[in-house]
């Protein structure tokens, strides 16, 4: 058995350093797999890499050898296009070999362009049409309530994604049903496909919107590992209402020439760019 169950470990320097190392490894693999695929969404995968790391390697209780374990915590990647980060985490946890990552988006691969719950072990919901994953996560949370299960459900949302009206339908419903086994995390990287979110569709005041919909809001720096870990714990202690962690992030985080760049929302690096990017990540790992 290889159950990941580290949630109760204190967030000391050793834990944080270990998770930061893993996050760098995920970033590396995100970039390699999207370049090998020749397409994909590296920018939003990098912005969520630290959050995904904190979940899969510390906070979630899950078992890669038994992906359908009934009592596992569930993670729904509502922003399905960010799947390179999820795939990298699943491979690193042992759901499938690392080599599988290099088949991303290729014919016959278990790693589809957007997550497919039937093809990929560890994927909890088929997502990719934005706005739906929070509702799916709410359904999983309600099933846990009916069955008196202790598992928790996590949904990672993109900031462009919350343009979708359905997100707010789900937000209303989760608060109405006082769902407290669900934590949403908003990857607030400020960029969507066509440009900056503030230019395409204004979200602010985003925290107030969630509060007005009946959610407990926790705002953090989405690249500070200790803050992420603390926030996930705090969200769990909120009772009789859902909680959202609003994570301020940087699109393309970790690679200087990708950070804050709209074009890397949906464009993979060229081979040359990849070499440069991997060098940067290597330097970061050595520091």
């Amino acid at each position, binding site marked *: 058995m290889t159950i990941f169950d580290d949630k109760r470990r204190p967030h000391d320097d050793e834990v944080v350093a270990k998770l930061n190392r893993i996050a760098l490894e995920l970033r590396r693999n995100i970039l390699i797999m999207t370049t090998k695929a020749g397409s994909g969404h590296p920018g939003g995968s990098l912005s969520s890499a630290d959050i995904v790391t904190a979940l899969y390697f510390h906070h979630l209780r899950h078992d890669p050898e038994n992906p359908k374990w009934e009592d596992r915590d569930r993670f729904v990647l509502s922003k399905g296009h960010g799947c390179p980060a999820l795939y990298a985490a699943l491979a690193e946890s042992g759901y499938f070999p690392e080599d599988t990552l290099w088949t991303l988006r290729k014919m016959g691969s278990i790693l589809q362009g957007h997550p*497919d719950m039937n093809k990929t072990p560890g994927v909890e919901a*088929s997502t990719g049409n934005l706005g*739906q994953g929070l509702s799916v996560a709410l359904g999983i949370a309600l*099933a846990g309530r009916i069955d008196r299960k202790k598992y928790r459900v996590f949904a990672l949302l993109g900031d462009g994604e919350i343009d979708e009206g359905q997100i707010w339908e*789900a937000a209303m419903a989760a608060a109405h049903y006082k769902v407290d086994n669900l934590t949403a995390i908003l990857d607030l990287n400020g960029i969507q496909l066509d440009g900056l979110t503030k230019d395409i569709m204004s979200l602010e005041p985003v925290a107030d919107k969630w509060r007005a919909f009946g959610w407990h809001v926790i705002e953090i720096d989405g690249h500070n590992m200790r803050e992420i870990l603390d926030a996930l714990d705090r969200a769990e202690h909120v009772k009789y209402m859902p909680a959202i962690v609003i994570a301020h992030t940087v699109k393309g985080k970790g690679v200087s020439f990708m950070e804050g760049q709209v074009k890397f929302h949906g464009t993979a690096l060229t081979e040359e760019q990849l070499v440069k990017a991997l060098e940067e990540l290597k330097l970061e790992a050595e520091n």
Partner: protein
Amino acid sequence: MIRKAATREAYGEALVELGRVDNRIVVLDADLSTSTRTILFAKEFPDRFFNFGIAEANMMCVAAGLASCGKVVFASTFAVFASGRAYNQFRTSIAYPQLNVKVVATHGGISVGEDGVTHQCVEDIAMMRALPHTNVIVPADGIETKEAVKAIIEWPGPVYMRLSRPATPLIYEEGYKLNGRPLRYKVGDAVKLMEGKDVTIVATGIMVSEALTAAASLEKEGISAAIMNVHTIKPLDESAIVKTAKETGAVVTAEEHSILGGLGGAVAEVLVENAQVPMIRVGIRDAFGESGTTSELLMKYGLTAPDIIEASKRAIKMKK
């Protein structure tokens, strides 16, 4: 006197009966539980019923999440919302991952009546049957509805079931019998209600009872019509349809739906590849409905026994 019942009422009653013996069943609605009759389940099983307000998109995806945890989920609203309003949600979150969600849509067709076009639905069968992994069921009466609800619980995967608002004539006898003969409901099996040799009337939903009326009139004129109730439009009972088409040499389809892409479309697809016999579609001729009483609308839009009679004669005349 004709015995009548609304298929939606039968659905509400069936949910309660089945909810008592199967605790996997969870029922969802979007502020129409009084109309869809899921309110009957809500009253008896409040812990397994969720009303999501007027938010169908959210309801469909919550259904997906519940189903992914082993629940048998029934999600109900009017057909126009269940299909068109939340189509992409059904497609991506339910049909694609083949989750065990039964979308039971009431108020199908134009028999909805006075509410008019916004609450009628003439296109749902075409839309839903185009989706992979999606089964489409349209019961002919209240008794068949109960059998269908029971059957789809044991039928894994996505189902779209279409029901009607008004009380319509009962075709079967209590316990799913026909002229005293007990039948067994099976998803995907067409039911031959009458044998005949000149033409086959292939009907679904409330048009089955019109087809029976039509056949009785045709018989008086010396025309022998076979009647086939296609309660499952997908998967379609292709072999039964091909067989009866070859036996009678002419086919009429009858549905309370657009002639584009529904039962008529599905039967035409099968016949053109397997048995090219003359075929006429009775259905709504590429139009929206309007406000009116059920019977006025069915008459105006060509969904009555006389329309089937006329179509049958034309189909027979087209035989070589």
